[in-house]
């Protein structure tokens, strides 16, 4: 395990990179002194509440304040109170901040009006006296139905976005027909709730100087800044967006926080006092974004020796009622759909479809888990059909250094594909499955998955973002890392501390990484896409080295050559004022991407992973228990192994939860299970003991060799878990029983009954 380069070995010797440094925000979190948005109070602060649609599709005819309530006690905001454009600006302007009278309501729980009151109780009372008059029209909830429906949710055809990726000259049908075998499957995955334990929330206040200040739970301060410029008609000088300590995000706090920030700001503007808008758990589950439900048709053509020769995939994602980030999620979904396998003839088609459900959006993995589930179910079936071991089939077909992906990207370096599969195979072979005892109801099964995940923005995205970060000497003598990367639990502050300390050649306690505010940090791009360590971490490292060099040359020119860096920096700052270095990200050379044909370098590099899941299925109760979970992930370089292990294990359990237990149930477009009681996530007792293996194939353009790790652990365990249940019940149920998630006890019961 591990192939650290010489240069990173040297770095390790000098600094803290590579060490399991305790989280810099750890003590505050275990003491309960870390301050999240709901812990903050401002003088005169009121509490906000959102009035939402109860119908999935209609035209708003009126908002009525019913008699019997003293409306002078509260402030009510409607679309008429919006000073700028009535939109939550992200990619397009299709989603309103508040539905205006006469305009379309497109989903249940869409925001119509806002209330602020001195207490939450009073706001709730007013909410009950505010009536909405909506003329209901027919709605569509199923993404396949929406393709042919009369109901228009978006444009003329409800299609939000399409993609086509083609590789090879031959006609795909002819190529499939020429293969010895074709495995065909239809795979469905359900929406998934991020279920960060801290519900979403924001506080907005307006200063007498006209500056709007927003603080809250978020991943992307500058996404909110951009949306607020449009909604509030403000320029950057009159707008500050600040992150509070954030209790988890997983993508769920990527785009939706702009909605809450806008609502809080509109209320605070009209009320003339700060307004806190914190979602209740049921509201958060019902109204905010989730993972896109998917339908994936996959045809895998291969020869008798196990060589894959043709892949044809058709991907449909349910985008919900507005575009939000759907086109980007679908892009990542199709770019991963052919899998980490060599194949000269590939076709991937993707469509995102609008329906009258609340918009789906970013969630860790961002489209890749859906298509990974499909291709790894296919791989399992193909290996079984040929009687090959699941490892052997994958080894035979896997992409290696020097191979080309489905977009014809040449893989050059940092390809840990063989290492990760070998690592889990060794553990699996040393621990064979127990034999089933036919006298009992228990059946054992093993599933394997092998996958990759592109790190960073797609194609030329990182060049367009041009993320920047600053390292400066703060007034109190600490070195300060300034970036818009938010710590949402994944350890940004700790990781940047280690990268900067190593770059500067100082102890970690000489470095501080504050939570970002848009008036204090440069735009480093959003905290998404497994890019924070690899991309922003790289510029933090470069800025640290540049600052160190500048201080050292100043010190030697001024006769302080022997002085420790921090002292020299303080001396220099007395003469020169604040000293800082800002570096802008430069993508690695040779990244060529064609957005029209979807060919070329889809990502700067890929993470590689493999996992083995062993399960025990009780054929009387249909319960599944996970007995073994082995997960190997190639992260390039673990800047902090404890943090990296935490990312892998957390992502693994989210994937296993999605595979076996988690579900979001819609009834007439409304989330029916909007409580933690019925929208379940795994507990301590559901989770397996995890065997996590960190593999390091350094990426030349990442900091000390590091590449992305945040999302890849989410991609594959779901397929391994479904495969393990299939394996356990292979003599009892046909494999189609496990092609839809979740493989819940109810689904297993249905599958066993259908086959008996």
């Amino acid at each position, binding site marked *: 395990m591990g192939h650290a380069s010489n240069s990173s070995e040297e770095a390790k010797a000098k600094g803290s990179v590579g060490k399991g440094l305790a989280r810099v925000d750890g003590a505050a979190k275990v003491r309960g002194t870390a301050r999240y948005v709901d812990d903050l109070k401002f003088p005169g602060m009121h509490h906000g509440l959102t009035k939402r649609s109860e119908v999935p599709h209609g035209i708003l005819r009126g908002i009525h304040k019913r008699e019997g309530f003293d409306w002078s006690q509260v402030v009510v905001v409607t679309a008429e109170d919006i000073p700028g454009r009535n939109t939550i600006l992200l990619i397009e302007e299709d989603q309103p901040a508040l539905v205006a009278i006469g305009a379309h309501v497109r989903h249940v729980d869409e925001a119509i009006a806002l209330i602020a009151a001195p207490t939450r109780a009073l706001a709730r009372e007013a909410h009950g006296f505010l009536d909405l008059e909506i003329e209901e029209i027919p709605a569509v909830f199923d993404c396949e139905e929406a393709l042919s429906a009369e109901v228009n949710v978006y444009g003329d055809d409800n299609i939000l976005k399409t993609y086509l990726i083609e590789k090879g000259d031959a006609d795909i049908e002819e190529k499939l027909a020429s293969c010895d075998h074709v495995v065909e499957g239809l795979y469905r995955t359900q929406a998934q709730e991020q279920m960060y334990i801290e519900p979403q929330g924001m506080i907005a206040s307006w200063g007498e100087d006209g500056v709007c200040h927003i603080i809250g739970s978020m991943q992307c301060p500058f996404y909110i800044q951009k949306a607020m410029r449009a909604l509030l008609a403000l320029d950057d000088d009159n707008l500050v967006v600040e992150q509070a300590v954030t*209790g988890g995000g997983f993508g769920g706090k990527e785009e939706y926080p702009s909605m809450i920030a806008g609502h809080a700001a509109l209320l605070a503007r009209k009320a003339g006092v700060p307004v806190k808008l914190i979602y209740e758990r049921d509201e958060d589950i019902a109204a905010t974004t989730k993972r896109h439900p998917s339908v994936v048709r996959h045809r895998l053509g291969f020869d008798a020796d196990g060589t894959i020769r043709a892949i044809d995939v058709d991907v449909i994602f349910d985008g919900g009622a507005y575009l939000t980030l759907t086109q980007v999620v679908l892009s990542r979904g199709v770019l991963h759909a052919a899998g980490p396998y060599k194949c000269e003839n590939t076709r991937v088609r993707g469509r995102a479809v609008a329906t009258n459900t609340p918009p789906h959006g970013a969630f860790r993995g961002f489209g890749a888990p859906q298509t990974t589930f499909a291709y790894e179910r296919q791989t399992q079936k193909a290996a079984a059909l040929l009687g090959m071991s699941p490892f052997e089939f994958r080894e035979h077909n896997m992409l290696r250094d020097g191979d080309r992906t489905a977009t014809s990207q040449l893989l050059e370096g940092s390809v840990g594909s063989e290492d990760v599969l070998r690592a889990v195979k060794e553990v699996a072979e040393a621990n064979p499955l127990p034999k089933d005892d036919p006298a009992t109801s228990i059946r054992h099964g093993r599933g394997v998955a092998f996958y990759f995940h592109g790190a960073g923005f797609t194609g030329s995205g990182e060049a367009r973002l041009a993320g920047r970060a600053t390292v400066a000497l703060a007034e109190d003598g600490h070195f300060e890392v300034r970036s818009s990367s938010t710590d949402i639990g994944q350890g940004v502050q700790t990781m940047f501390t280690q990268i900067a300390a190593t770059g500067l050649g100082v102890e970690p306690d000489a470095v501080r990484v504050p939570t970002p505010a848009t008036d204090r940090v440069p735009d480093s791009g959003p905290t998404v896409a497994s890019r924070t360590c690899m991309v922003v971490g790289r510029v933090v490292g470069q800025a640290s080295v540049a600052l160190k060099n500048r201080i050292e040359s100043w010190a030697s020119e001024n006769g302080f050559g022997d002085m420790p860096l921090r002292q020299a920096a303080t001396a220099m700052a007395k003469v020169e004022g604040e000293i800082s270095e800002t570096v802008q990200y430069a993508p690695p050379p040779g990244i060529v991407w064609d957005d029209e044909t979807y060919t070329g370098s889809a990502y700067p590099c890929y993470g590689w992973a493999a996992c083995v899941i062993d399960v025990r299925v009780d054929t009387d109760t249909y319960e599944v228990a996970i007995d073994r979970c082995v997960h190997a992930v190639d992260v390039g370089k673990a800047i902090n192994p404890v943090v990296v292990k935490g990312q892998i294990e957390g992502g693994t359990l989210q994937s296993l939860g999605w595979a076996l237990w988690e579900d979001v149930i819609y009834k007439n477009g409304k989330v029916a299970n909007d409580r*933690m009681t019925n929208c379940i996530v795994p507990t301590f007792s559901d989770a397996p003991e995890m065997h996590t293996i960190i593999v390091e194939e350094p990426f030349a353009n990442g900091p000390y060799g590091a590449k992305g790790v945040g999302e890849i652990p989410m991609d594959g365990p779901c397929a391994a878990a479904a495969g393990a249940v299939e394996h356990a019940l292979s003599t009892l149920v046909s494999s189609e029983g496990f092609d839809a998630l979740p493989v819940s006890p109810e689904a297993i019961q249905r599958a066993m009954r259908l086959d008996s």
Partner: protein
Amino acid sequence: MNIEVTINGESRSIETEGHRRLLDVLREELGLVGTKEGCGEGECGACTVLMDGEPVNSCLVPVGQIQGTQLTTIEGMAGSDGLHIIQDTLVRYGGAQCGICTPGVALCAKWAVEKEPGASKERLRELLAGNICRCTGYQAIVDAVVAAQNSSESSHE
């Protein structure tokens, strides 16, 4: 009503309505905002406090019920210097990520380790199952609690 209670070792007299949620009284009246609200219905355990040494979900406890009890919130878990051993191992093993479940997890783990010294990993998972964490996959928390358990055992030797 008037409530006499000991919170984190300090006697308090609180004048409030008895049906209010303990969680709200702690956060809004007493400023003890280390106790977090995750779901408001006793599912997630983020609002866990110890009442006479036993974990309770403070979102489900009407404040009238705390009359005469001893409460420990996260603010009272560590001594005046340093961290409680469980807080220390949670930080070192990576058992706290986003931190919002951490106060509840830390208090519940303290209870579990004191209630059943030497409990197996499997038993610890059962004892802690009322606290949901979405970040860690639970492994680092379990490892941290086992490490704290071992360290307490060795300190008794």
